[in-house]
């Protein structure tokens, strides 16, 4: 069954792993996303290595480093695993790299990015590639990543 390619060990484990499901006290950004079909609400928190203050993430220069990344909220295994992968992946990256990774991830789910070298950069988040074949669950997989475009 195709379901086995989506609900893999790595995804179910990530969904239960609450290491990065926590509040960052000094976070500069708390980016919220809602999936209206299931009601899942997720907030991604970013702590940046900068003294500047920016009105939105879009204004932050590419070279600023993300020193910590976490997520809050509850949801289905796919949205939780996706948020956990995101938090793990973005910690220590620059904002510019985060933007590229977001585009690669969204491209993977859309099916438009298939280049293995590009996908490898997503590390564990590649495990969600199978969601591309499940239209009903695409919103769950992309919820956390879309918050980076706010």
């Amino acid at each position, binding site marked *: 069954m195709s379901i086995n390619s989506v609900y893999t060990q790595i995804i179910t484990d990530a969904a239960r792993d*609450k290491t990065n499901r926590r509040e960052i006290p000094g976070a500069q950004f708390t980016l919220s996303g809602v999936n209206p079909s299931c009601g899942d609400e997720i907030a991604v928190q970013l702590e940046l290595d900068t003294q500047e203050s920016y009105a939105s993430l879009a204004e932050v220069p590419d070279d600023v480093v993300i020193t910590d990344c976490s997520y809050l909220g509850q949801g289905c295994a796919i949205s939780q695993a996706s948020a956990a992968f995101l938090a793990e992946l973005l910690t220590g990256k620059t904002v510019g790299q985060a933007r590229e990774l977001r585009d690669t991830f969204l491209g993977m789910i859309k099916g438009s990015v298939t280049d293995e070298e590009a996908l490898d950069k997503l590390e564990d988040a590649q495990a969600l590639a199978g969601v591309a074949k499940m239209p009903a669950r695409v919103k769950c997989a992309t919820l956390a990543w879309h918050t980076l475009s706010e």
Partner: protein
Amino acid sequence: MNRQDFPTTALTENDYPIRYFDSGATSLRPSAVLSAIERSSIHNNANPHRGIYTLSVRATQEYEDARRTVAEFINAETEEIIFTRNATESLNLIAFTLPPVLFQDKTKNNIVIPISEHHSNFVPWQRFVKSNGYELRFLYCDKQTGDIPDSEIEAKIDEGTAIVSFATVSNVLGVHLPVEKLTQKAHSVGAVVILDAAQSVAHEQLDVKALDCDLAVFSGHKMYGPFGIGVLYGKKELLDKMPPFLTGGDMIDDVTETLTTYSPVPYKFEAGTQNVTGAAGLAEAVRYIKNLGYDAIAEEENAVLQYLTEELEKLPFVTLTIPSPTVPRASVVSFSMDDVHPHDAATVLSEYGVCVRAGKHCAHPLLDYLGVPFRATLRASLGVYNDTSDVDALIHALKETYAFLTKTSKPV
């Protein structure tokens, strides 16, 4: 039961027969309805109410026959039946045209709805009161029984209430609302009663005269009819007072450069070319229900529903959203699976051909109020095609799904 009447039940998913438990969202359609749509599309394909030629006359006849069929079905007068797209459009029509009439009475200042209402009977009212100072009040139900306490009805519906609008059956909880009690209280303070019968009309008789509701709505597609055709019933004297909702062709008496006079009800509410094939399909769905008979439908569905709830209660990892209803449920049961999000469960159940609804069921305020895990539930709802073999398949799939989604359980 009547499975053979519904071609969709012959479909499979991964070699499993389709087990359809989402009739609360939309029902399957019997061959008779599908044939009626095709027949009408071929033989009566013309614009109704306009043409002089025979084909158009037949289209008009079909459409007006359908109106009569629906009127008889709910014990209304023919001119009291307005065709819309669905219950949502019917409710929007009411929410846009009724309040301006009722709130001319300056003693009126509020609208009352149960917290359990579907967004279709929630958002239109919320939007209306946002644009003025009126109050939208909610009747809160008991979380164990789903019942609205009498004290709640007494406290919320008062002399200032202009409208009491509610579903006959909650699309999430499956509980019957106290139609008579709410209607009596509403009428005692001079409020208008609107019934949303979308969730009940495929299962129980809607008799608008016996219930004495002022307006009622339902959708064709939840009662074995086609998509895109719905019904608005209203007492004639009330409909006469309400202004048109959409305007345009077919709903006018005359139009000059500066003035339009409207057709009488029901036509003043039916602007533009109407859905003749939809009406033909809906009329056939009415005949289908009448042929089965509500008594037989209730007897068979209630037996399946009882078996379903008993089997669900046996599963240690399942919690029913309303554990102890005081009145038997109506064809809908919501439940949760321990530690498993309803969307994950529904995805895996689908692999076994089992179609259930998962999420917030277009009733976000209710799910927030109930405070269930994940603020979402699984929902199984029944139609006349479901039998105990469907229930057995659902229960089997639920066990497999739970095992699958919790198999890698690591300590958190």
